């Protein structure tokens, strides 16, 4: 993994395991990636792929029985995996903030929007009360909430779902963090509201020069937002590359399968290409490649040896013994 001056966050060989009575769940099992300043990285995969756990691990939000068992999370060279709780508290909300999937549950229903916004500034800046209030009003206006001064006194239930997600984004942006981790930020929203929120997030990131990790299962959303994409399967990176390259010429059969599963208006009425079977039980993964039971290209080697992430064409990397070449049919 190359780390340049432009790198904001570099994750090396991250391992987050959950020790349960029915076995160890290796939810994140050796994940590495890097994000440059001002970049948007999409973290894609199906449920159980470990993408949310990566997000929580970066912020040190893994609760027992989960534990970060190994790896480095370097934010500008500082290893967050080794940082104590006090240091993490300084970082959360200030350096790195998070936007969660469900705007109904990520705001505190007992506090006004103004109180919840003010808290961020009180903890992370030296501003006095009047200056904090002005900053909150400006932030609410910049996420498209009208009559912002009046709305500071409102409670979350007085907002609609889309408006609440705007508030969550406003809170996440308030302390001008350098990295925003957005975990399925539009999955709970309708499509017209989703397009408003995605536009808003794109503008906020560009204006403030922040970076973003966009965690989603929706390849269409990620292809419109991200500069590059990392695909997770069973806690491991199976492919990463620049967005257009990865979507147009995927190297890993799993990535290809995900893309082909999306109904294509240009090729309708044909049967959808489907990935056979289901995601294996993560406590009981197959020998060799995790994807081999579902893979149309699997051969004997795939059962014996686990493939490593290797460069394919140019900036694209895939973990596959028999990667697809551009022009191959699946």
């Amino acid at each position, binding site marked *: 993994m190359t780390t340049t001056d432009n790198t904001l966050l570099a994750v090396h060989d991250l391992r987050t395991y959950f020790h349960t009575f029915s076995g160890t769940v290796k939810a994140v099992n050796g994940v590495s990636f890097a994000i440059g300043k001002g970049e948007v990285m999409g973290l894609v995969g*199906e*449920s159980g792929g470990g993408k949310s756990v990566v997000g929580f691990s970066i912020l040190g939000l893994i609760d027992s029985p989960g534990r970060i068992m190994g790896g480095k999370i370097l934010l500008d060279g500082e290893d967050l995996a080794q940082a104590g709780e006090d240091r993490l508290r300084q970082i959360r909300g200030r350096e790195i903030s998070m936007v969660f999937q469900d705007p109904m549950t990520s705001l505190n229903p007992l506090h006004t929007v103004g109180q919840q916004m003010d808290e961020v500034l009180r903890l992370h800046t030296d501003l006095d009360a009047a200056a904090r209030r002005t900053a909150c009003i400006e932030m609410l206006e910049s996420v498209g909430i009208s009559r912002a001064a009046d709305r500071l006194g409102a409670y979350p239930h007085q907002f*609609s779902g*889309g*408006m609440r997600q705007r508030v969550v984004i406003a809170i996440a942006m308030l302390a001008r963090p350098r990295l925003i981790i957005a975990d399925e930020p539009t999955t709970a929203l*309708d*499509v*017209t*509201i*989703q*397009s*408003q929120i*995605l*536009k808003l997030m794109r503008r906020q990131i560009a204006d403030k020069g922040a970076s973003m990790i966009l965690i989603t*299962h*929706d*390849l*269409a*959303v990620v*292809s*419109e937002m991200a500069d590059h994409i990392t695909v997770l399967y069973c806690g491991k990176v199976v492919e990463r590359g620049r967005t*257009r390259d990865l*979507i*147009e010429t995927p190297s890993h059969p799993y990535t290809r*399968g*995900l*893309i*082909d*599963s*999306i*109904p*294509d*208006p240009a090729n*309708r*009425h044909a*049967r*959808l*290409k*489907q*990935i*056979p079977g*289901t*995601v294996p039980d993560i406590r009981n993964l197959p020998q060799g490649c995790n994807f081999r039971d579902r893979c149309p290209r699997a051969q004997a080697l795939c059962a014996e040896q686990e493939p490593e992430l290797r460069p394919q064409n140019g900036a694209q990397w895939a973990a596959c013994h028999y990667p697809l070449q551009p022009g191959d049919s699946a």
Partner: protein
Amino acid sequence: MTDPTPMLEVRDLEMHFPIGGGVLDRLKLDSKGLRIDRPVVHAVNGVSFRINRGQIMALVGESGCGKSTVAKTIARIYQPTAGEIRIEGEDIASYGFADMLPVRSKMQMIFQDPYASLNPRQRVRDIVAEPLLQQMKTAADRKEVPARTQALLAKVGLNAEHAGRYPHQFSGGQRQRIGIARALSVMPGLIIADEPVSALDVSIQAQILNLMMDLRDEFGLSYLFISHDLSVVHHIADTVGVMYLGFMVETAPRDTLFARPRHPYTRALLSAAPSIKARRDTEEITLMGEVPSALSLPSGCCFRTRCPFAWDRCAQERPVLKDVGDNQSVACHLIDEPERDRS
């Protein structure tokens, strides 16, 4: 559209829900004095459409547009406020529980959440057999049930050893297969599918959509397919109805609707949908604001509060669905005054 008796015909369907609450909460003092307010949610406001045998009709729209209420009203989970629901010509809108029993062999439903729609205490074979046992009254018929259950499970891609298991032993996609087997058990002509794939991962979604298409081809099923996902609708539907705030604002054959959407809301919906394609050629209408409350509908056109083209006529007069050719119908005043379409 010449089929004399379509599988399903819905005319002017209305579904209003009164809101409960204590009398004191609903007391209102206005110029006419003290009165008790009776607030009503206008979930469905006069929806009409028909589905011929073997056809798939999709209803699309955002949350709160009434598409699921239409589905549940047709399945007679709700008692409609007004309108007709004809299954093979028979109006079931006012049927009681006992009257509905024979109708249920013609119409079954698949639900969105495969975790909540299966009884966790029933084995799979009992879940699938339940509708059959309701329909079969003689002991001779009932003898066939185990064999038919096995055949149904095989049809949806589950094997015999699955029959004795409980729902929690299955993944989401497999559970949805069980739901489909249960719906198929009585050989209905119409299946109402309310967001059948939206709780599933995309690779599993493709499996279920393929299965639904195969079953349609094999048994000549009609589907009423409720979805908010336009790419799924584009894949599966023959005709599409777009709903907004309980009104049908546009209906058209699938290809017409996606190639030439006429209603400003349809156009906005299509252009808002994200795509993995690099470029898009659809015009971009960005909607401001959000859907108004179904408690107090706007006067005139339901969409005017968010429509970029709205003018004074839209506030005064409610547009009705008008045929614009090619089986496309649109409820918008722009059809009469196309010069106002400035995009």
